[in-house]
């Protein structure tokens, strides 16, 4: 167990090697109707046919989040950025179902960005140009060698948190997979619920 490049926290329990199961969840568990010769349907992911409805943040907060996401994860090296990957919309969902402390961190942080933009440039954060965004954002950045040890100041803490979250939400999006040609790859093994408690 050595330090992982992608995750500085050293997990004390590492996954051991076991035989890999067949890829693809449904077919490996047997689809209803197989014995009757019914073919497995190719299903469509909701992101491919529908737009996420942002509903947790206020319009002002969401506008700041979109501007911030674009700054943190712009299109680079031919890859799509946070906006194209709908990372702000996903974070609106994720934070909306998160513990209240995380919700307060995000809401407070986005409100603070708008307040700083207003004080400095008499505009909302969403209306700032890239140089103005940098002027607001740069003083709030901090190096955080451990992901669990974020700054105590709530705004700097928010920035440290959202900086990672936007990148993850972008790179793990269906759009990113589509544009980078990784769609359809099997991915890692995920545990399904193991003998979940019987509900009757």
């Amino acid at each position, binding site marked *: *167990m*050595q*330090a992982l*490049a992608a*995750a500085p*926290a050293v*997990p*004390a*329990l*590492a*996954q*051991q*090697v*076991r*035989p*890999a*199961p*067949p890829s*693809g*969840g449904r077919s490996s568990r047997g689809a209803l109707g197989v014995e009757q010769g019914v073919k497995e349907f190719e299903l469509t992911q909701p992101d491919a046919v529908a737009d996420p409805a942002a509903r947790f943040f206020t319009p002002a907060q969401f506008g700041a989040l979109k501007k911030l996401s674009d*700054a943190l994860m*712009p299109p680079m*090296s031919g890859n799509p950025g946070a906006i194209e990957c709908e990372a702000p919309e*996903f974070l609106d969902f*994720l934070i909306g*179902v*998160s*513990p209240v402390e*995380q919700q307060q961190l995000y809401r407070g942080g986005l409100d603070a960005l708008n307040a700083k933009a207003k004080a400095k440039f008499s505009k909302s954060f969403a209306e700032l140009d890239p140089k103005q965004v940098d002027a607001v954002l740069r003083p709030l*950045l901090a*190096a955080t*060698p*451990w*992901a*669990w*040890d974020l700054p105590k100041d709530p705004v700097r803490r928010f920035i440290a948190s959202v*900086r*990672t979250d936007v*990148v*993850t*939400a972008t*790179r*793990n*999006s*269906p759009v*990113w997979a589509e544009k980078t040609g*990784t*769609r*359809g790859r*099997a*991915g*890692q*093994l*995920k*545990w*399904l619920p*193991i*003998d979940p*408690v*019987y509900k009757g």
Partner: protein
Amino acid sequence: MTETHDVLIVGSGHSGGMAAKVLTSKGISCLMLNAGPEADYVKDRVAVAAHDLPYRGFGKPGRLAHVTQANEYNAEQWVDEKEVPYTSPTDAPYNWVRVRLLGGRSLFWARQSFRLSDFEFNAAEIDGAGESWPIRLADVAPYYSQVEQIFRVAGRREGWPQFPDGNFVTETNLNLNSGVMRKIVELAKPRGIPLSTMRSSQGINGLASSINLLLPDAMATGKLKIVSNAIVREITTDKNTGLANGAHFIDRHSRREMHVKARVVVLAAGTLESTRLLLNSGIANSSGVMGHYLHDQIYGVRVLASVPEARGGKAPAGLMGGSAFIPRFRNLSKNDKRNFIKGYCMMIGGAASPVAGDFADYGEELQKKLEHYAGSCVSASIYGERVPRFENHVSINKTVNDEWGIPVLHIDVRDSQNEVNQARDAADTAEELFRAAGWDVIVKTDKYHPPGYSIHEVGTCRMGDNPKTSVLNKWNQSHDVKNLFVVDGSCFVTCGWQNPTMTISALSMRASERLADLMKAGAV
């Protein structure tokens, strides 16, 4: 009328599995109760890409708040904190990381395999403080040797007293041939820093678990029965003799309460679950020590130094790479005066990269910086020994029950200045070493994870010769209840800097052989 089993074993990880293997091999019938289900590695896992996960890899927010090792892929393997919660003071967070699947945490451990040395067994004399174990390395060495054979431990013999050699099935070569590691070798020697390699259980097909190395042998004897989804609520005792006579357990699915009878009870549910069970049962604690001296290892310290000529992907062939494992090198002699007792081990990596959090940048500028430094770094991190302290303890929180109506644990653990000083020394040592090599230190932090993170929690039922200051005798047998044995990490007096699995397994083997002898002699 149901049968009375020879031995009831609670828990199925390395310690419970070892007890079952040893006892059944001597013809003793065992019943094993395990709180969780058996996982099927084929049916219970599917390959899925992160973008197809409901939470895009983030996992369900708040579900496993204290398991920093958890992610959306492995979330199901851990104990659900809402089903089996625990409490701790708001200013003293504790990460209790649990697995209740058959085989317990032995399914997922990192397989680092070390012996404790007499610097730990004889800690009071070495440290000038605290308690020593009632046993020494010589008492455990024969059992370590057998355990290392079973787990197929690979390592390199060094002959260093603080890093006792094992009965290695494979000799591991040093991994110091790169340019950066040769530089480390040159600088470490005059500083008294020893360099070796990791010692690791190879197991079979990469798995070194109770379910493939211990339980199959026990089952093959025909002497072991295993009941899964059996959540033990209480160890029951005979009113006249005070001896353990069985256990109440709850079926996880139906919630039906059952009772099982046994002549001997062996607890192997993991340090804190065994202690919780004993505290809830109200037995074996005439010393008042039960629940105290909880400790684990500090995991942390990050020092990252970039080698100038390796940046921008331009490292010459053979410059980067390799690794070193540095066993404890502090406080090994009376002349080594530090502002802390005990010690730490250090891991050096010869081809590391920074992560985004290492820089106060964002966007394209951050990305370019990460690419510039990728693979150009040498890294250092540590596992350090926390000091076992009476005030770090667990108790039963009678106001909170788990999903099955069982009162939960309250965990109250705080670090001392000793841990802070130890981590600071490690960070300073690594920084000085890297700067002496001519490398640029780009990250240095002496911070370490909160208590519990190492998943090496031990103590709370420590062993000792004095029944007034210990819960168990040197054979893992309760001082108070003679037919009760506790064979998991709760028996530890001090944890050392070493992964405890080899020691837990060796002590379980030793205790089980003793128990078999006592049963044969009619003494239990």
